[in-house]
């Protein structure tokens, strides 16, 4: 893990009319780290992530992602990142293999690379029997793992994960995080939002958003010491208790 | 009852919060009335024609004047040669060419006979026929004038009276058809899509799991569209009466009662489609291709049913809108009462019952 900054924001703000979704958030993410972007529902996490991905234009403030400007170089940003949305957006009416080939091709992988990567991916996930099946027929946990793998197919600098583990059992979640670890080992920076506080423990550093503002940013251990809490759950309670915005 | 109203209220929210769809629901009938009432007509007016006059004498000039004065024709050009006629047809909208041979007047006065040639663009045979008839009538008129000095014995004088629609307005034919079309469209398409959307979203399961009779869920869905359709109907009637001078010679309450019957028929059809369609796209396309186009065609307001080959005429009987169209014409324009339309009403009623039974049965099996 080097100290190269891959994400740097400076008072990044997004307003929807009178409503300020994210309020002058400022932080840095370093290459290769697993950065947890926590907060309750409605705190502004998804809005922030969409800006960083180039899906939404900020109202004010600045940011660079992978060295590219968030206003002027959104297309460059997109070449260097991966994304997994809350809905795990794979094409349900295409097969596993077809989804891999499509997204790989879009990101510019050559045919040879595609072939190699898809075989590798299918083996890693153990989906040899499912390769030619429609994604719609897969159980939720497999869709999730597949979506993640597809998001990093092109070995991007950063991968953004928006609540990636919703709705699956703890074993599957654990397997998913194994995948995240191996990606981080390869040097991919992981930017993950979640409201499962136990997953916060898996991250290198964690930030906590409440009511559109970053209330805390540090390693999980330091945060627990700071708030005299035994778990990240308790840290969250401390910070979010006074929150005015409760739901998405 | 209170629970039922809760459902109904939710359905109203769905409908009224979707502004773009609402625009279509209300806008379409108004647009259709305006179009059918003012823009679309089967009458043949202002048809562009060309004249090729080799004679250029007094007789031809008089005939040409008559033609120019007629509303049916719009003389575009005067041509000088036969060859130009074919070019003119190919290049554009010319529908008819009239050719006067040289020495027309001379022939008429001295030989007592002359010929005029009419060439019609028969790509549209109907227009060709009609225009040829009109042109011939004008020429015959001129001939009559020449003969005026001779007293004609044995004159049979036909007196024609136009019933129900003395001004031969197109609206009387179209408006009942538009009523049928709009009601069918809104009720069938909207209902089926709305139900399927809940299926797709997964919210249907939630509703079905509630301690609520699932049939009432469906009925709750239908109610906003029922009310919307009644509003639409009223708008159409008001517009037709004020803008298009349509008469309402019969009982308005009977008209509304029959309309509600058609609405229920349409809603049942929408329900049936929603059982069959797996996605919104499918529901939409089935409603459009499978219901709208046949309704437009087979109701009888765009194309006369008696012109169709017999097998198609049989198909017309399956279309609910066809029966409704007859009922509306009888009530609105002919001013007849229930005794004249009880048969058609019975048919509609039978269709409704049939559709409801089939769709409820299908709906039930899907649940179990």
């Amino acid at each position, binding site marked *: 893990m080097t100290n190269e900054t891959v994400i740097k924001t400076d008072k990044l703000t997004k307003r929807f009319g009178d409503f300020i979704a994210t309020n002058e958030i400022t932080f840095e993410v370093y290459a290769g780290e697993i950065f947890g972007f926590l907060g309750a529902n409605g705190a502004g996490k998804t809005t922030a992530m969409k800006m960083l991905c180039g*899906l939404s234009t900020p109202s004010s403030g600045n940011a660079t992602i992978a060295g590219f400007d968030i206003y002027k170089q959104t297309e460059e940003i997109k070449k260097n990142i991966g994304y997994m949305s*809350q809905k795990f*957006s794979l094409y*349900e*009416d*295409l097969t596993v293999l077809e989804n891999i*080939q*499509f997204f790989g091709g879009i990101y*510019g992988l050559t045919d040879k690379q595609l072939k190699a990567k898809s075989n590798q991916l299918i083996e890693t996930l153990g989906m040899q029997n499912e390769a030619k099946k*429609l994604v719609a027929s897969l159980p939720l946990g497999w869709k999730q793992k597949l979506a993640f793998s597809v998001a990093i197919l092109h070995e991007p600098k950063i991968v953004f994960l928006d609540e990636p583990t919703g709705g699956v059992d703890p074993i599957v979640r654990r397997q998913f995080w194994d995948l995240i670890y191996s990606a981080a080992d390869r040097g991919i920076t992981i930017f993950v939002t979640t409201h499962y506080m136990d997953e916060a423990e898996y991250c290198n550093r964690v930030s906590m958003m409440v009511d559109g503002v970053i209330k805390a940013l540090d390693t999980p251990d330091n945060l627990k010491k700071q708030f005299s809490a035994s778990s990240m759950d308790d840290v969250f309670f401390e910070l979010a208790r006074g929150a005015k915005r409760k739901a998405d | 009852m209170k629970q039922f109203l809760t459902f109904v209220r939710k359905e109203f929210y769905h409908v009224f919060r*979707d502004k773009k*769809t609402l625009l*279509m629901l209300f806008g*379409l009938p108004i647009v259709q009335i305006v*179009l*059918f009432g003012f*823009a*679309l*007509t*089967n*009458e*043949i007016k*202002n*048809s562009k024609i060309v004249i090729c006059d080799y004679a250029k004498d007094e007789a031809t000039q008089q005939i040409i004047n008559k033609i120019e004065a007629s509303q049916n024709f719009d003389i575009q050009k005067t041509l000088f040669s036969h060859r130009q006629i074919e070019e003119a047809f190919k*290049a554009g909208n010319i529908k008819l060419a009239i050719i006067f041979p040289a020495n027309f007047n001379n022939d008429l*006065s001295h030989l*007592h*006979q002359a*010929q*005029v040639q*009419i*060439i019609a*663009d028969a*790509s549209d045979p109907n227009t060709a026929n009609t225009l040829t008839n009109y042109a011939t009538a004008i*020429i015959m008129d001129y*001939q009559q004038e020449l*003969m005026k000095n001779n007293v004609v014995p*044995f004159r*049979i*004088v*036909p007196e*024609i*009276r136009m019933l*129900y*629609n*003395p001004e*031969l307005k*197109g609206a009387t*034919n179209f408006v009942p058809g538009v009523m049928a079309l709009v009601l069918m469209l809104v009720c069938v398409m909207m209902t089926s899509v*709305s139900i399927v959307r809940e299926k797709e979203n997964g919210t249907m399961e939630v509703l079905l799991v509630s301690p609520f009779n699932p049939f009432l869920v469906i009925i709750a869905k239908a109610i906003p569209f029922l009310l919307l359709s009644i509003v639409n109907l009223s708008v159409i009637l008001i517009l037709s009466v004020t803008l298009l001078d349509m008469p309402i010679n019969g009982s308005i309450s009977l008209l509304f009662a029959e309309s509600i019957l058609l609405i229920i028929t349409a809603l049942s059809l929408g329900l049936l489609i929603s059982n069959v369609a*797996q996605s*919104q*796209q*499918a529901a*939409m396309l089935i409603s459009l*291709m499978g219901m709208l186009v046949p309704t437009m*065609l087979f109701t009888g307001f765009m194309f006369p049913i*008696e*012109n*169709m080959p017999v097998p198609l005429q049989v198909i017309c009987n399956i279309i609910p809108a066809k029966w409704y169209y007859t009922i509306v014409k009888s009530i609105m324009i002919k001013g007849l009462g229930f005794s004249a339309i009880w048969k058609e009403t019975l048919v509609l009623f039978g269709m409704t019952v049939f559709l409801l039974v089939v769709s409820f049965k299908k709906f039930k099996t899907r649940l179990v």
Partner: protein
Amino acid sequence: MRTLKFLLQKEFKQIFRNKALLPLIFVVPIVQLLILPLAADYEVKNINISIVDHDHSTFSRNLISKITSSGYFRLADYSNSFQSAFNQIESDKSDLILEIPQGFEKNLVRENEQKLFIAVNAINGVKAGLGGAYLNQIITAYNADIRLQWFQSDKFNTAPVITVASSNWFNPFMNYRFFMVPGILVVLVTMVGAYMCALNIVKEKEAGTIEQINVTPIKKYQLILGKLIPFWIIGMFVFSVGLFVVARLVYGIVPVGSLLLLYGYLSIYLIALLGLGLLISTFAETQQQAMSVAFFFIMIFMLMSGLFTSLDGMPQWAYIIAKCSPVTYFIEVVRMVVLKGSGFSDIKNHFVIMIGFAVLLNGLAIWNYKKTS
């Protein structure tokens, strides 16, 4: 370029896997092309007439036989009472009534003039007008016949007679299907193309996959092209099947003009039409909205296109609206090329206008589609 290839592969796979949609795109238009032209026949024939004959003379009987043998009319009823004839009209069993008064023959000879009474159900104005005109024609011809029989006088031989020779070009058999089929084909291709395209982007919006696409380096124009090309190909295919299989085999319609010209125009028309569908798609948030808006426009375009009713009879404002619709132009072109064999110089203007539509609509669609909101 490679990106486009991947996009197209995905789109085609999705279209062909959609079992519900395939028959609707391919089978239904063809079926409708078979049925619609059979139904769409504006010719006025088989008019039902009820005759009330109070005279029962040779004259009245001759007149009646002339009417029934004319081919325009079908004798629905023959009776003594006007009321019973009127009941027929009320119950739609008859379209018009001819009442021959008592003493018709006698009075015509004695007083040189006699009236006949005709009552027409004018709810369908056109039918009534033509029906009345036909009946009038028959009566006039009958009148002339009587005069000839009774009054063989030289006076009438010096009356000037104009004969009208009429001929029909481009459709010598006066087959109404020739007129309707090309137009209906246009309408079907239009409906399929516009709806499919309008729903397409919206479906991805609803499913969330559009976000996944927006986050990739795919360029806007690549995305739009990727959506356009599959439906363009489908549109061409449906049109070809309609033209070469249905129109030719079932109706015997063989295009007189250049096929190259026709297909050239079709290509541009499809681009314009699909552009409209895409444009609608970028505005709508749900499939229901896209469908409603698309339907609204398509219905107006269809009705005003000159397919069912003539543009000539429209008031000025309606004419302008009709001229703003791409469908109007294509229907004109199809009829001109298929039936009259018009050439490129004849439809030059149509080409220019359609290219304008295509550029405008697709440009707007690309401009309005935002990868970043």
